[in-house]
């Protein structure tokens, strides 16, 4: 009979008893009515019988023993399996080692920081330190020292003066060091004086300006409006002017000094400033020193305002410490205004020039 794969598959399933009842009946009908299909069925059946008639062979007697021996041999050769407890113990030990190493590294880092703080070159010490709000906790020894101090959130035109100098430390990456900008930045100050007797104060200041020869040179007084005076002069000339102003300082209801830090928009505010304190600031040789003194004074004045009884300020003042013992600039004996100007002009150089703007505010 010619092979028909579909019929053969059906017949093989018939032989193997893998047909459903319906298929089985259908194949039986085919076999009955088609001799060729019946003959093919017999051929396939004989094929199956031949294979299935092959006698079964028993496994060699030694097979089971050989399997056991092989298993035992492999078990002996295998490294012993680690128990769960051993694995956990090893893990715990590893964690302890890692933590110990981390603790050692941390300790070494702290020690290195302490040693560096002790042995650091003086130049590092001279960096302006951070003056923070008084409520801020002090830094621990060995903690990283901020690179720069800047003043934040001081509104120049704020009507009511704040007693606290709001000074905040920022991260170093956003702020250039003061020392780096020292040479390129002028030392600018703005003095805001509030007074009830405005005409008298203005008249006195105008007179002081005139007496010290500032009116005669545009280089010194470059702006004089109603209640606004802007100076750019030497420390000595500025000292003379402040010396005169000190005489009428009591007539000011408030005196606030804004010192530009070199960072745009940032200033140090010294509330309740005195002429002596301004003189102390401008007497310092470098920009950094002036800024340092300005910050110190800002803090001290702030403490003076905040502490009840003002005992600390009084005691400091009584001690005549360096900070508050402000050397008065020696006022030269003037034979004429021209002579004073000439002497002052000879001594002026850019690094020691002081820029001061005085604002007289009517209360």
């Amino acid at each position, binding site marked *: 009979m010619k092979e028909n794969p579909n019929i053969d598959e059906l017949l093989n399933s018939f032989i193997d008893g893998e047909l459903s009842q319906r298929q089985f009946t259908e194949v039986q009908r085919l076999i009955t009515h088609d001799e060729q299909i019946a*003959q093919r069925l017999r051929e396939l059946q*004989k094929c199956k019988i031949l294979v299935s*008639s092959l006698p079964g*062979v028993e496994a060699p007697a030694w097979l*089971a023993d050989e*399997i056991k021996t092989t298993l035992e041999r492999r078990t002996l050769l295998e490294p012993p399996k680690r128990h769960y407890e051993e694995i956990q113990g090893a893990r715990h030990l590893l964690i302890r080692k890692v933590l110990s190493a981390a603790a050692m590294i941390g300790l070494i880092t702290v020690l290195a920081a302490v040693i560096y703080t002790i042995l650091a070159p003086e130049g590092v010490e001279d960096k302006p330190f951070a003056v923070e709000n008084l409520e801020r906790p002090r830094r621990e020894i060995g903690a990283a020292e901020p690179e720069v101090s800047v003043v934040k959130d001081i509104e120049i035109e704020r009507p009511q003066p704040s007693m606290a100098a709001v000074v905040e430390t920022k991260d170093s990456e956003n702020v250039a060091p003061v020392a780096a900008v020292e040479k390129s930045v002028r030392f600018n100050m703005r003095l805001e004086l509030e007074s009830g007797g405005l005409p008298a104060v203005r008249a006195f200041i105008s007179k002081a300006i005139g007496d010290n020869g500032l009116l005669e040179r545009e280089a010194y007084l470059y702006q004089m409006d109603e209640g606004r005076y802007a100076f750019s002069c030497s420390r000595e000339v500025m000292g003379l002017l402040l010396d005169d102003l000190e005489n009428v300082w009591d007539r000011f209801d408030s005196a606030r000094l804004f010192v530009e830090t070199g960072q745009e928009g940032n200033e140090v505010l010294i509330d309740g400033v005195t002429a002596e304190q301004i003189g102390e600031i401008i007497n310092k040789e470098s920009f950094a020193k002036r800024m340092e003194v300005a910050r110190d004074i800002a803090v001290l004045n702030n403490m003076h305002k905040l502490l009840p009884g003002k005992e600390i300020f009084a005691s400091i003042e009584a001690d005549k410490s360096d900070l508050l013992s402000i050397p008065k600039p020696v006022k030269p004996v003037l034979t004429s205004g021209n002579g004073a100007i000439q002497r002052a002009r000879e001594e002026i150089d850019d690094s020691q020039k002081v820029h001061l703007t005085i604002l007289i505010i009517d209360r």
Partner: protein
Amino acid sequence: MTETANINIDDTTLVEQCRQGDSEATERLIVKYQNRIYNVILKICANADDAAELSQETFVKVIENIDKFEGRSSFYTWLFRIAVNLTLSYCKRSVKLGLKSLDSEADEHGRQGRRTLKEFLSDDSSSDPAAIATNKELCELIKKALMKLDDKQRAVIVLRDIEGMDYAQIARVLDIELGTVKSRLNRGRSNLREIMEAISQ
């Protein structure tokens, strides 16, 4: 060993005991299946020594990996899957299989065997399995004919006609579709018939 094999314990219990390191359970599993495994492997690879070695390798692999047996299929299916896969891999590697010509094989087994086979294959002959099994020459011719089949077709025929698995079990052991089992079995039997007719001439 024979005594322990006679104790009727189901596979699941034996496997669980074997996992717990019970050597007696391991021995029982081996004894229970060693003849069937050996027989199937021998019919596929046609070499007694290789069949013994493959059987041993099968049981060692099964026992060593019994912890990985997840029970998704029966232990019987898992065991035969490992055995057949090992044997088919061996057949691929072996250069000893399928190299002899039918003519030389026919010459080896003499005219008596060929005549018996020819009579059996003729349409009007009787098909007494007992008579076939006792005819050593005929059995050798059948084995040789089986060896001329494709390995995959031979495996399906052996699992069906010697081990007596149904189609679904064969599909699970060989990890193939049921339709593939049917088609391989169909082609295998047709080819086997032709090979035996050729041998009997």
